[in-house]
């Protein structure tokens, strides 16, 4: 393994480097997405409370305030999400899978930002990208032996997974096309964090507290499982 010194720029790409090709393209896509997204983010954020026109999002009937930029960004980020999600399935190395998942979850957060759901996007970043996934990577790293371990699922599992995922896809499509979407003319205002917090502690207090209790139970259970036998 250590003898395989790679001469950079010599034109002789190893198999490893070829496998990296799609990965590099995806990284490039994500980075372009980030660069493109940054200014629109500041456009949407730079407005004052008094001038909420930019914080409002375009719905059917009215041209989106961002002009052509917004649909382009949406499709770029959405494509990144799809490519990264495919990467999670196709990658053979478990840390690579985790990195693809990182990109997928991150671009979902960007979709939330694009849809003016700032709070949801931030929570997506903090909870999934910064919390859950990093713990996953941590666990993988502690148990895995080398970066070159390949993960090859048996054929039977692949077929089973394909059947389940296909069924889920069909079901989701059916729901998506049969659902009645609320349509609003013009622009609807985005929800501020203060508003969200107020509703969580008044209208939706019970579900909020139930979720809190659930998390508490999970934490106590995890602590109990992790405790050393005495």
């Amino acid at each position, binding site marked *: 393994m250590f003898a395989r010194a790679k001469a950079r720029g010599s034109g002789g790409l190893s198999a490893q480097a070829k496998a990296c090709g799609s990965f*590099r393209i995806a990284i490039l896509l994500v980075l372009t997405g980030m660069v493109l997204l940054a200014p629109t983010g*500041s456009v949407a954020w730079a407005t*004052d409370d008094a001038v909420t026109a930019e914080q409002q999002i375009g719905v059917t009937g009215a041209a989106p305030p961002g002009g052509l930029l917004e649909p382009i960004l949406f499709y770029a980020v959405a494509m990144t999400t799809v490519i990264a999600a495919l990467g999670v399935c196709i990658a053979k190395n478990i840390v690579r899978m985790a990195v693809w998942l990182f990109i997928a979850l991150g671009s979902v957060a960007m979709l939330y930002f694009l849809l003016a759901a*700032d709070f949801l*996007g931030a*929570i997506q970043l903090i909870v999934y990208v910064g919390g859950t996934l990093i713990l996953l990577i941590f666990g993988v790293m502690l148990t895995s032996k080398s*970066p070159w371990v390949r993960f090859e699922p048996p054929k039977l599992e692949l077929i089973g997974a394909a059947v389940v995922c296909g069924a889920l896809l069909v079901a989701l499509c059916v729901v998506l096309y049969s659902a009645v979407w609320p349509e609003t003319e013009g622009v609807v205002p985005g929800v*501020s*964090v203060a508003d969200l917090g107020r509703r969580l502690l008044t209208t939706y207090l019970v579900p909020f507290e139930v979720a809190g209790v659930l998390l508490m139970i999970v934490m106590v259970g995890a602590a109990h499982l992790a405790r050393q036998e005495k």
Partner: protein
Amino acid sequence: MVEFLTSQLGVSIILALVVIGVMLGSVAYCIFFERKIAGWVQDRFGPNRVGYRGILQSIADGGKLLLKEDVIPGHVDTPLFILAPAIIFLVAFVGFAAIPWGGQLQLGENLVDIQVAKPDIGLLYILGVASIGVYGVVLGGWSSNNKYSFYGGIRAAAQMLSYEIPLGLCILVVVLTMGTLRLESITLQQTEYWGGILPMWNVILHPLAFLVFLITALAESNRMPFDLPEAEQELVGGYHTEYSGLKFGMFLLAEYAHMITASGFIAVLFLGGWHFPWIAWTQPEATAWYAVIAKMLVLAGKITFFIFLMMWLRWTLPRLRFDQLLRLAWKGLIPITLGLFTLAVILVYVGRQQSLPWALLGNAVVLAIVLAAAGLSQVEVTGRQANLPSIRPGPVSTGTART
């Protein structure tokens, strides 16, 4: 064109470019000052060969890093190896976007904010960005395919995850006191006064939370005494052992950028940001260009002070052992911050204008409880010392003076 440049968007874009430029320059010079301060602490000169008193040292170092061969060893996981410094660099610089640099500026008839972005989610944006930062270190350590780099990455993950909790709780204390997530509102609310004299800075209301925030900020930016991910004596180099050239430079620059961001947030959250009490130019009402410059200088001064403090600490304190590091977070800082959080909830009930005596009393109570708990709990020394029976000096308690 002039219309665009004086609008909020134009000012934001210009400010973003200026901030990135200034940051890159000051990050380079942070390294120079770090070495100068190291020299000062250790009673020697520090770098003084390049240019007048060594002020061109950083430029020479940067040139060296640029011109060095960018080696990618054959045994690394190449894409992740390239991705890691990119992530850490991006994250270290994105945080600057939300810092309110200098209040508001009157440009023609427009009143624009001297701030790149004003997200409604303010502090959550910072937390979200900061939580991505750990990926750079972890992936760098992992993709190097080197036992010691890998240990560095694992240490970084455990450390940053542990210290994110007290950091978040300290931020929650500030959020509860201020009732907003917006950094500019947090600054603005701190420009009021108690009795017309004492500025309502959060550091006066929550001195303990300020201290804990300072400690966790040090830990989050992997600075001494929390720099275990890059402990040279134990790990050859750390998570960046296999890196060379500009990729190594990016890790190095990101560390200093992280320090500047952390200092900026300490200044904004606890020390009133650009506010300097009793001077008319640094009040929120002053919106002329010279007032904005004065405010920026005040914030820069506060940031410089904290960077100096961090460097001073680095060359003064020894490194913690890893179990001590995690114990400090889980058994020390998290209980303290939970107590401070409860205190902040009570202070919301009292109201901010009346809460000064209650806040000080509450902080004193929390401090007394912490000291009593630390003194009474006979925590055994664990780790390497416990396995050396010959030199073990009997039951040793931490928290009380060793005799």
